[in-house]
């Protein structure tokens, strides 16, 4: 079976359980088992070749640019691990089927489990370290799901997050390490990397790579000081613990160390980091395990300890140690998985895992007792079980290894660890199963059904068989795996009796000492509990909590919603960077002389500066600020005029007026004054920054104006071609509607959008309670009577046609003289606004039948259609055309498509301005405002009976109808 398929089967299988759960729990479990089983069979088909020492390789390119390819290979090491993963996986699937209760979503469980299984298989089959990283992180993610499987348990959620955080951190460190490793080796393919031992170990980057990779491995394999997450992951359902935390995931780190052993091991750095870490972990885990009352916690720390043991062996860097490591991986997987399952059975049956509440189960659960006892004895290293064999090998190696020239450190500590290992193993038997039967179990325990104990039983059988017939049963496998680790030919001598060796003495000491320790457990426990010791979870939580609080404080501090500060930072930053950019370059001397100036510029300058300064000084009085803005607009417009920019002058002044109207409309609803809020110091700071920015900008434009273009400006082209190519003599207009008509197209779009936004906003605001507020709003000024004075109405009526005439004039001449669609549009809009202002919103809008939306739309469409029209001529969008028409008796006149485009501009401007102002005006609409007459006071309406009017005058007031109704308005003369 292709390695691709083996790696893919679990992932494919992951789809089914969740889908099949409707078909029942058995279907779900079977489908999971099927996928696992098929992959297992596929793996076994490769067994003969692998045991012969061959390597199976497949690969396809995935991301060749990076060197990340889907390359897989299967050698002894990969085969060993894949066998464990798939084999124990099958057992776990069976066990979990019976372990999980009806309330648990089993489909989800198997899906997660198979995802995890696939990721693990992927790790051990990868022939590319980047691919391995992909699977590596996938194990973190899928184990996160599995640990948190019981979502309602806070411990589950926290344990899952902790595991994810720690192993995720390691994974990320490993990414760095792997990238360095690949960088040194020149490839990310493992079989290539493994050939570069010399290059790697002599590289300067060896140590960083090693450390980063080891962080990944240590976190995954729960090595000190990253061991603390593993016990908390025990919140997961027991099948998960048995699978992830004994047999597979935690071994991924070991796998990685074994995988890269040929290139990383053998150096002092490797030895001191790996072996020392392993040793510490082994001892520490063993000691803690003894004092854990939770069965799973005990097993978890024992796992930590055993992982340390294997790590230490790998750290020794010798062939023999590697063999021991490989062998212990197999043995630990068998007995520890079995132990976890028995712990699960106890928990399942007795409804507690607390050793203090257990004891005497031997009588109630004989089958479980037997299984647990055999497995625990193996763990303790009691002959003839398999644990004994590999532990002997470990002690043997430990006794030969020097640590900083000291021959006793490792051996002594290893024995010490083994001693505790014996103690907690025996405690597992003695305090759970032995002793008198108790009356206070939370539930009444009894042996579970066969389905549940079948899996551990099978494993225990293996424990015994491997112990007895190791050479036959697992010899070739160990040889193949250890050969793959060491890249040498290996023949392991697996046997029970090695003669009287130091290891035997150490082992004996450990067993005896362990028994004594167990006997002294109660007093020791009191001492242990009295000892102050760091609680890893507390520290971890404190760190995470502190980091979280820090980030929250920082985030809140930085993003507190203060636009003022955001702007301040932006302005300061820009100024600093800009000054830096200027200072770090060179400027040539001015190439132009400064021009003199006459009276008009100086007057304008005085007006502008004084008005600007006064705006700053008086800005809290908003209305006055608006008046001052009017001065600035006027002066800027005058200056444009003076400086040969008549089009700009016209545009500026027209825009100015509309802007003022808009602001006044808005100010009606806003507070009329700005409170003084910033302290003087803040104002000083703001002023300083503003002045610096102003000086920068002013200095920049001053420098620019006194230098010529470095190369001739493209403007020469426009001067050259605006008439002969664009058909107009007003170059600015030709640029706007022709050379750069596309900009103008964008510009009118902006204007149209602005109006749409304003309209939408008005609608949004008026659809809320603000509407009621506005309707009930009392004006905050003393409103004068006669809101639509007749003089104004008459004048605007008179002005409107003339203004439109002016607009037409400005429009038509624009191509040749200052003007154009935009200014014309503004003037036309202002002509209409005049009506709104004079005669009232209601009256004027009743007379407006074209929807402003439509006018905007048609404007943009006309402009676009003009542009598209060029396509039919076979020329690009917006290509203009013009010609001169001669009618009899008349002078020739020009027709240009640019005028059509300008018409689009005109329409868009009119529509946009009107829609915006009309929307804004709707805020002020009040039901009491009559729109029947434009002129409030119009004696012409009284003419029919002027005589009676004279009399009624004395009775009341000639005014608009009151909002309160006609009854309270004593005026009847108005009716006509």
């Amino acid at each position, binding site marked *: 079976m292709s390695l691709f398929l083996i790696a893919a089967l679990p992932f494919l299988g992951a789809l089914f359980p969740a889908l099949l759960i409707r078909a029942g729990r058995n279907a779900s479990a079977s489908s999971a088992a099927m996928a696992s089983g098929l992959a297992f069979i596929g793996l076994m088909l490769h067994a003969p070749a692998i045991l012969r020492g061959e390597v199976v390789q497949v690969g396809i390119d995935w991301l060749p640019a990076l060197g990340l390819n889907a390359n897989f290979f299967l050698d002894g090491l990969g085969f060993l691990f894949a066998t464990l993963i798939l084999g124990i996986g099958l057992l776990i699937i069976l066990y979990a089927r019976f372990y999980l209760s009806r309330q648990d979503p089993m489909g989800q469980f198997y899906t997660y489990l198979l995802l995890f299984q696939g990721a693990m298989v992927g790790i051990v089959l990868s022939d590319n370290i980047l691919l391995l990283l992909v699977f590596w992180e996938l194990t973190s993610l899928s184990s996160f799901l599995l640990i948190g499987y019981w979502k309602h348990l806070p411990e589950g959620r926290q344990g899952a997050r902790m595991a994810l955080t720690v192993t995720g951190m390691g994974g990320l460190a490993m990414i760095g390490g792997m990238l360095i490793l690949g960088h040194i080796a020149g490839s990310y393919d493992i079989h290539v990397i493994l050939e570069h031992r010399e290059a790697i170990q002599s590289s300067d980057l060896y140590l960083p790579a090693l450390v980063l990779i080891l962080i990944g491995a240590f976190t995954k394999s729960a090595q000190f000081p990253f061991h603390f997450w593993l016990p908390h992951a025990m919140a997961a359902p027991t099948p998960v613990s048995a699978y992830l935390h004994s047999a597979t995931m935690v071994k991924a780190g070991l796998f990685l160390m074994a995988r890269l052993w040929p290139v990383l091991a053998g150096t002092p750095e490797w030895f001191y980091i790996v072996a020392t870490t392993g040793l510490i972990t082994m001892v520490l885990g063993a000691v803690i395990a003894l004092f854990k009352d939770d069965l799973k916690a005990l097993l978890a720390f024992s796992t930590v300890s055993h992982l340390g043991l294997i790590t230490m062996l790998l750290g020794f860097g010798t062939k023999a140690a590697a063999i021991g490591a490989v062998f212990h991986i197999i043995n630990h997987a068998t007995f520890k998985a079995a132990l976890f399952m028995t712990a699960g059975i106890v928990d399942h049956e007795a409804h507690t895992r607390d050793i203090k509440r257990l004891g005497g189960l031997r009588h109630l659960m004989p089958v479980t007792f037997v299984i647990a006892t055999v497995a625990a004895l193996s763990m303790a290293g009691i002959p003839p079980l398999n644990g004994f064999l590999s532990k002997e090998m470990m002690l043997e190696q430990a006794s030969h290894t020097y640590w900083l020239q000291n021959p006793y450190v490792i051996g002594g500590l290893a024995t010490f660890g083994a001693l505790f290992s014996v103690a907690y193993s025996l405690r597992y038997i003695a305090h759970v199963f032995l002793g008198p039967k108790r009356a206070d179990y939370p539930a009444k325990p009894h042996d579970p059904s066969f389905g549940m104990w079948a899996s551990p039983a099978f494993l225990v059988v293996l424990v015994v068989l491997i112990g007895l017939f190791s050479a036959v049963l697992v010899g070739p496998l160990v040889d193949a795996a250890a050969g793959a680790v060491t890249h040498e030919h290996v023949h392991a001598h697996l046997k029970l009796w090695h003669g009287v060796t130091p290891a035997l003495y150490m082992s004996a000491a450990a067993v005896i000492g362990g028994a004594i320790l167990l006997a002294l457990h109660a007093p020791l426990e009191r001492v242990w509990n009295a000892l102050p010791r760091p609680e890893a979870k507390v520290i971890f939580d404190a760190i995470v909590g502190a980091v*979280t609080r820090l980030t929250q404080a920082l985030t809140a501090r930085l993003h507190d919603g203060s636009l003022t500060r955001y702007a301040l930072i932006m302005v300061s930053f820009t100024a600093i960077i800009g000054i830096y950019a200027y200072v770090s370059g060179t400027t040539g001397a001015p190439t132009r002389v400064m021009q003199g100036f006459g009276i008009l510029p100086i007057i304008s300058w005085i007006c502008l500066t004084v008005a600007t300064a006064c705006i700053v000084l008086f800005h809290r009085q908003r209305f006055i600020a608006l008046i001052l803005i009017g001065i600035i607009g006027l002066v800027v417009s005058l200056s444009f005029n003076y400086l040969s920019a008549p089009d700009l002058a016209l545009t500026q002044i027209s825009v100015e007026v509309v802007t003022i109207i808009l602001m006044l409309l808005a100010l009606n609803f806003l507070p009329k004054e700005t409170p003084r809020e910033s302290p003087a110091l803040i104002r000083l700071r703001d002023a300083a920054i503003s002045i610096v920015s102003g000086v920068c900008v002013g200095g920049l434009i001053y420098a620019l104006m006194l230098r010529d273009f470095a190369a001739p400006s493209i403007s020469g082209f426009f001067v050259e071609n605006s008439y002969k190519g664009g058909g107009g003599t007003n170059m600015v207009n030709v640029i706007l509607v022709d050379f750069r008509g596309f900009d103008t197209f964008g510009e009118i779009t902006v204007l149209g959008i602005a109006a749409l936004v304003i309209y939408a906003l008005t609608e949004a605001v008026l659809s809320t309670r603000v509407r009621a507020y506005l309707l009930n709003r009392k004006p905050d000024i003393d409103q004068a009577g006669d809101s639509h004075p007749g003089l104004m109405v008459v004048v605007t009526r008179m002005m409107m046609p003339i203004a439109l005439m002016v607009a037409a004039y400005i429009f038509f001449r624009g191509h040749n003289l200052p003007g154009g669609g935009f200014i014309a549009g503004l003037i036309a809009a202002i002509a209409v606004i005049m009506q709104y202002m004079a005669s009232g919103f209601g009256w004027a809008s009743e007379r407006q039948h074209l929807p402003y939306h439509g006018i905007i739309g048609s404007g943009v469409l006309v402009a676009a259609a003009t542009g598209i029209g060029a396509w039919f001529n076979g020329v690009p969008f917006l290509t203009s055309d013009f010609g001169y028409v001669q009618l009899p008796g008349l002078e020739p006149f020009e027709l240009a498509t640019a005028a059509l485009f300008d018409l689009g501009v005109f329409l868009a401007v009119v529509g946009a301005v009107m829609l915006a102002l009309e929307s804004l005006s709707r805020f002020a609409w009040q039901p009491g405002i009559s729109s029947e007459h434009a002129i409030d006071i119009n004696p012409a309406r009284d003419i029919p009976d002027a005589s009676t009017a004279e009399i009624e005058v004395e009775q009341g007031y000639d005014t608009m109808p009151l909002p309160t109704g006609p009854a309270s308005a004593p005026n009847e003369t108005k009716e006509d």
Partner: protein
Amino acid sequence: MELLIASAVGLLTAAGIYLILRLRSFPVILGTSLLSYAVNVFLFATGRVVINAPPILNKTATDVTYTDPLPQALVLTAIVISFGMTAVVVMISLGAYLSAKDDNINMDDTADLQGEDA
């Protein structure tokens, strides 16, 4: 002349930025208006300033100097765009004021950042 223009641009910029740094939306809008004057004059002046040389082609005379028409066209576009922008910002801030009865430009945006997940 250049000095007048440059100092005016600088002053408008400074005043604009100062007002943008105020705490209420209305002065901020005033500030953006002032700033856009500064920008427009700045952009205009990048074509270098000339008196009495409007970019209107004189077809009958030769040797006529014209001011650079391109910055003028750019400024026109910029004026129109900034008008649209001003209109929008005026309206949005009005909407914000009417909804919140508060025209403070700064909002307390830390409410959804506090607290701690157990």
